[in-house]
């Protein structure tokens, strides 16, 4: 990096060529009363000093061996093939802007076109956008999309299936500006379909990792013309479970951080949105499409831009501009590398490990294990046993326990979400189970 002294020298050389005697004359429009305030922050550090400081801070984060990390609940320890990091770090990708100039952005544009293809295939839908911020905001945008499609200022929406409190909070925050009518039904049995519901949102798999058969409710809703939205927090499941497209979805959204990106304390994540071709003009976010130049060469461009804020301004389908482009690239490379067989094998492996974990836990006296079909996350009821104390005990043994759900919702006291991942073998699960038994039996 340049030193301050070399920058000052360069600055001096530039000022000589300008109609100004000193740098302050360039700021003559700024009122004197607020110019050059006294700012109480330290002067810059050299690169080695910054490195030491950041390494010190990083050491105050504790990470656990991945095969012993049973925390999931929406963000998963998925193995990221080395090739993903290697390719995505090429600075032609990394340091580029949004691909407004297609002739010198075919790298990004082609990769996003692949991403759109992958997300459409995975969810069983026709088209996809180029990404949104994260799963929670993608769901908020999906609900707004329904209000555009149905041409109503506000819509009545019911969310079916357990949703993370965080998602719910984001929906409610976004809704402060939208004034839609939102209702939540954690349990399918609590819900009765009636007229006047503009959209149903199905959490799939839901926050508890449950994969629930919604077929009959969807049939009923379709007869009434209700829009069907699927929200998918763990999209790997769709490699083996019925796709939202097969189930009759109009819009699918969700979180793809776990398809090629790191947990990274929850962000950057990767929101996605797929839908039917006929709804393209109501979609939020950027879309890449194929076209050709005057000589007939095939190429890719940002398209349907008249939906977007830089053209449509207050009538845009969303305010989104920068999205999560680099993560979409990561997911594209991840899919290309894993392929169909790699991803089906992985999804099956995760499913089998989930069943194995549930079986082993249900053998422990005093625990109640969810009887629904589960993928990756398993809901376990510990009753009077303190999950907090258990997780403390596991930590002492180098194991990161599951998510104590009472931390998010007091009503879920005693419930824990225990999660398997790509790195675990049966013996890692056996070890966890043995520790839990040891904790309970003393």
């Amino acid at each position: 990096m340049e030193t301050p002294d070399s920058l000052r020298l360069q600055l001096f050389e530039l000022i000589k060529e300008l109609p100004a005697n000193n740098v302050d004359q360039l700021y003559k429009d700024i009122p004197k009363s607020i110019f050059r305030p006294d700012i109480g922050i330290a002067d810059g550090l050299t690169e080695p000093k910054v490195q030491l400081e950041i390494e010190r801070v990083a050491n105050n984060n504790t990470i656990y061996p991945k095969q012993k990390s049973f925390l999931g609940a929406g963000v998963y320890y998925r193995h990221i093939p080395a090739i993903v990091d290697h390719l995505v770090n090429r600075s032609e990708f990394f340091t580029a802007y949004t691909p407004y100039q297609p002739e010198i952005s075919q790298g990004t544009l082609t990769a996003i076109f692949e991403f759109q293809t992958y997300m459409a295939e995975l969810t069983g839908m026709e088209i996809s956008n180029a990404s949104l911020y994260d799963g929670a905001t993608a769901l908020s945008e999906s609900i707004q999309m329904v209000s555009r499609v149905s041409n109503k200022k506000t819509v009545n929406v019911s969310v079916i299936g357990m949703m993370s409190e965080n998602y719910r909070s984001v929906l409610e925050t976004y809704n402060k500006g939208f004034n839609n009518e939102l209702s939540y039904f954690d349990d399918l049995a609590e819900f009765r379909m009636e007229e006047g519901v503009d959209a149903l949102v199905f959490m799939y798999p839901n926050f508890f990792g449950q994969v629930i058969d919604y077929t009959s409710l969807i049939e009923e809703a379709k007869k009434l013309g209700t829009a069907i939205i699927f929200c998918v927090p763990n999209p790997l499941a769709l490699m083996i479970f019925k796709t939202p497209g097969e189930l009759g979805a109009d819009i699918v959204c969700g979180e793809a951080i776990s398809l090629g990106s790191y947990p990274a304390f929850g962000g950057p994540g990767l929101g996605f949105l797929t839908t039917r071709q006929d709804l393209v003009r109501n979609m939020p976010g950027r879309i890449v499409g194929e076209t050709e130049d005057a000589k007939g060469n095939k190429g890719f461009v940002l398209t349907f831009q008249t939906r977007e804020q830089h053209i449509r301004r207050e009538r845009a389908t969303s305010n989104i501009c920068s999205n999560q482009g680099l993560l979409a690239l990561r997911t594209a490379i991840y899919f290309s590398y894993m392929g169909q067989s790699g991803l089906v094998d992985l999804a099956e492996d995760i499913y089998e490990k989930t069943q194995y974990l549930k079986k082993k836990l249900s053998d422990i006296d005093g625990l109640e294990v969810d009887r629904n079909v589960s993928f990756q996350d398993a809901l376990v009821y510990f009753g009077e046993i303190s999950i907090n104390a258990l997780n403390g005990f596991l930590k002492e043994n180098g194991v990161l326990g599951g998510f104590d759900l009472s931390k998010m919702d007091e009503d879920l006291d005693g419930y824990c979400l225990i999660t398997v991942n790509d790195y675990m073998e049966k013996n890692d699960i056996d070890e966890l189970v043995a520790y839990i038994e040891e904790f309970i039996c003393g």
Partner: protein
Amino acid sequence: MDNSPIFEKVSISKGYISSNIPEALRREKPCRLPEASEAQVARHYTKLSTLNFGVDSGMYPLGSCTMKYNYKILERLASLPEFLNLHPLQDEEDTQGILEIMYKLDQLLSELFGYSHFTLQPSAGAQGEHTGLLIIREYLKSIGDERDLVLIPDSAHGTNPASAIMAGFRIKKISSDKWGNVDVDKLKKVLEKEKVAAIMLTNPSTLGLFENNILKIAEMIHENGGLLYYDGANANALLGMARPGDMGFDVCHLNLHKTFGTPHGGGGPGAGPVGVSARLVPFLPKPMVEKEGDDYFLDTSNEKSIGMMHGFYGNVNVLVKAYIYILLHGRDGLELVCEKAVANANYLMEKLKDVINVPYDRVCMHEFVISAGKLKKETGVSALDIAKALIDRGYHPPTIYFPLIVSECLMIEPTETEDKESMDKFIDALTSIVKEASSNSEAIKATPVTTIVGRLDEVKAVKEPKLTFFS
């Protein structure tokens, strides 16, 4: 072709269906995905990368986007496993490091821009606007004020009106005077009739000019009972020199991927933290990072908060990079960043005055606009043609046709990381294009010719949409 998607380069799996799960829940139609070797994947994306242009490829004077060089140390340190493998639901005792960075980044940004606190949750500038406006909305509600009108200048970014609508406001456009500043007389007339919730301003404006009536405007809006929103897209021009908080802006968002040197990633992830003055702090999204004794924690206790704007805490890894950027530069370095950014823009503008029309002939801030209006009348060569001709000469073009109030506009922002030699070469390139426009305009209109594709047919892309490989 090299830009063909991978589906055309390797075979596509016919796929198979998993048989282990209950039939009623089982996927019916397998995914159509490529079956590629690692070597094929490596070659495909390496080839694609060569069809891209990043800041490392060459000068990127994209106005209002602040495409500065991204220091590689940011990447190396933010990619430490203790950052990448940290789970957002881990106990606070395991996450003290990241919480410390978030806590200190809030403090640093607050000091630099003159605010009480910053929320770090918004994922990008536009989401920052949305957040800031929801904060204003909830604040006004809390004092029993129902006003719902947001004023937006005609030179504003399109995200401003779009965000205002998402936050449940009505909008009214405010016209600019001939210097691109807010027309104070017209503003006065509006304020006589309307109760205004907020005015959104970009300062310096998208013309690269400082709003020299800002203190007066702030007084007028506050007297009316409204608030001022600062769009931080152009904050690189003020870094350490003047603080939006001191100008009277009650709310401000920043684009860390512009001002604080985190890479744009081909369209994201960015980060759009929002700073607020003391009276608005209770309405910030939760959680905020707080400190008790030596311990950092996530505070969710705030009853008045607008709620969460992100499923967790925002684009945290981008925040880490911005924090590193501030440590590297510090007070002295950030001041130099600002001075050099402004001096570079003025140098380019000064030299280009002899080449092409510079419609606002006065000292600029970090960026300025040129107009190809006259050139187009004389030669037929438009702003778009100049942009494409620059591509053939090895440059990323400036922002074109924005702001809308300048005809055939090109908006140029060199940033502080450009050196004099590269700016001189850029001036030569632009000079040669303007010359060739008179002698051989057809050649300019045929550009670019050095790229894998020529100008692409955008109408066809909409009329015959092909948005996935299999459609």
